[in-house]
C-alpha cells in the first residue's frame, strides 16, 4: 500500500503545484492531502519493514516489540512480546532503523532528515490544530511538501538498500521533486 500512498501524495502535490489558476484554498486542500498521504506512506513502509525484521534472529525482542508497536510483558522469568499495543513515534522508529541499517547516516547533516521532520511537524500541526483557519502560505506549503515527499522517498530508499540490499524500484524513486 505504501507505494500507492506515496504516489497519491506526489500526484496531489503535483496537481497543486502545476495548476496555476487554482485559488489558494484549493491548493491548500491538495497540499494537506498530499501531506497526509505522504505520512501514511512512510508509516505503512515502516510497518512493512517491522514485519520483515520480526522474522530475523539478529534483532532482540525489545527492538522487535518497539518496531511492531507491541508491549513487552514479564511472563514468569522472561520478557515476551505481548499482543497489547504500545505505540511509538514514527520518527523514533525511523531513527532507530536508519541508525541500525544505514551506515554513516548523519542526522545532523543529512538534509532529508530535517525535511522529514518539517513535514511530520506540519502533519501534527494539521491534525491537532486549534486554529480556525489554515494560514500557511502556499509558498511554504509547496516547500514543505516538495522537500518532505522527497525526504520520505529517500528514507525509503536508504532503508531498502540497508535491509533488502536493493534500491527502491525506479517507479517509486521517480516520485521526487
Amino acid at each position: 500500500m505504501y507505494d500507492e500512498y506515496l504516489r497519491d501524495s506526489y500526484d496531489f502535490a503535483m496537481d497543486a503545484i502545476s495548476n496555476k489558476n487554482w485559488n489558494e484554498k484549493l491548493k491548500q486542500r491538495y497540499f494537506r492531502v498530499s501531506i497526509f498521504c505522504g505520512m501514511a506512506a512512510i508509516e505503512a513502509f515502516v510497518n512493512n519493514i517491522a514485519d520483515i525484521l520480526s522474522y530475523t534472529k539478529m534483532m532482540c525482542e525489545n527492538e522487535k516489540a518497539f518496531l511492531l508497536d507491541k508491549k513487552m510483558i514479564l511472563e514468569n522469568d522472561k520478557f515476551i512480546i505481548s499482543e497489547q499495543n504500545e505505540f511509538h513515534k514514527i520518527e523514533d522508529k525511523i531513527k532507530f532503523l536508519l541508525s541500525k541499517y544505514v551506515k554513516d547516516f548523519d542526522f545532523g547533516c543529512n538534509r532529508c532528515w530535517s525535511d522529514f521532520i518539517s513535514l511530520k511537524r506540519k502533519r501534527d500541526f494539521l491534525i491537532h490544530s486549534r486554529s480556525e483557519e489554515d494560514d500557511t502560505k502556499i509558498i511554504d506549503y509547496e516547500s514543505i511538501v516538495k522537500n518532505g515527499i522527497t525526504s520520505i522517498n529517500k528514507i525509503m530508499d536508504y532503508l531498502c538498500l540497508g535491509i533488502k540490499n536493493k534500491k527502491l524500484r525506479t517507479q517509486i524513486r521517480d516520485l521526487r521533486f
Partner: protein
Amino acid sequence: MKCNTKNLIISKLLHPESSVIKKAESFLEEFSSFESECSLKHLLFYDKRSKAYYLICHIKGECLKLKTDLEAVLDPEESEEYKLNRGFYIDNLAYKIMKEDALLGRSFEDLVIEYDKHYRPEIPLKVFGGQHRIKAISEAVKKKINVYHGVRIYFDLSLEQKFNIALVNNTSIAVSNDLLDRMQEELLGVNLRNWCQEVGLLKGNQNFADKRSPEGIPTVRIARTLLVNFFMGKNAKEDQFHSPIVCTSGIGTDKKYVKLRDTINWKDNKLKEMGEQFALLHKMQRQRISERKKDNFLEFMNKAIHPCVVASWAYTAGLFQRKSKLKILKKHYDLSRIGQGDPLNATALLKARDNAIDPDNYRGLGARINNTELGRMFYLFYLHASKATNLGINSKLADSAIKYYIAQKADKAAKKAIKRI
C-alpha cells in the same frame, strides 16, 4: 576431362578466370599443405551459389597462427579497419571447450579463408569462417601443439561473394540446450530416465523433452534439478540460510549433478517417494488448471516444472527427510491433495511481489531463475509445510515468504559481518 597446371587439377567443366588460377598457384607455392607434402595435386572446386572457386587442403596450426587475418573486411578500400565477422566470445563455454580440444590435438576442419594480398599482405589468409577455432588453434600452438587443420581457400572473391560466404558461415541452426542435456545424459547412462519413468514423471518408453514442452514433459535439466536439490536439502541444517540451485544447461554437464550422480541409490524408497510426490504435484497442477474456464494459461499449467519451483520444492522435501520432521514432510507432499484450486495457486504467486523493490514487469514468485527467486520460493514451501496452519498456498503466505526471505538474508549478512570482527 581435366586441365592440369603445376599444382592444380581443374575439371574441364569449370572455366575459372586466369586471375583465379594465378592466385591459387601463388597460394600453393607460398604455403605447404599436407597434400603437397604427400606429392598430391589439389582439386579446384566451384560453388555454384556464390560462383566462387576454392580448394580444400590441410595446413599446420603454426602456419594458421602466423598467416591468418582474423580481422577480414568486406571492402578493404572503403573500410580496412572494420572487421566483417563478429567479435570474439572467449568467455563462452563452447570456446573454452574448443580451446581444451585444440590443446589435446583436435584437428579442426572446414575453416573458411580467402587468400588475399590486397590488404595486410603479410597475413594473406583472410578468415571468413572459423575465427574462434583459429584462435583456439593459435593458443594450442603456443603450447607446442601443432597439427594439421582442414581449410577451404577461396580465390579472387568479389564484394558480393565475400559477403555471401561470410553470411553462410555465420548462420547456424541453434541446438537447444535441453537437447544437448539429453544427449549428454544418454552418454552418462539410462538411470535418470528410468527413474523418471518409474516415479511417473515420464511415461513408459517416453524420453525427456528436447525443448520446453507445452505438454509438460520434463527436460533433463528439470530432472537433474529435482535430484540435486533433494540431496542438497537433505544435507542442509534447518537453521542455515537455504539457497536451492537450478542445474546448468547446455554444453558441459552440471558439475554438482555429475558429482552427485555416482553416489545416487536409484532404488532408494525415500527418493522414489519424493519423485512420485513431485509427479503427482505436476499432474494435479496441470489437471486443475486445464479444468478451469478462466486463467487456464500454459504457464500456470506447467508451473510445477518451472526450474525455480522444482528446485525449491525438492530442496524442501530433502530438508524434511529426518524422522523428527515427517509430519512436516507429509504436509509438504499433501500440497497436491488440496480440495480445490490448483495446488501451487499460480494466480496468488503471480500477484505476489515486494512493492518496494520489484519492478513493474515482475512476474511473481517462481517465474524467474535467480537466487532471490529461488530463495523466496523455497521459503514459501518451507513456511507452508512448517508454519502455516492450513494446507495450501495463498497470497498471505506468498507475502510472508518474501518477507521471511529478506529477513533470513539480513541475518546471513549480519552473521558474516560479525565473523569479520
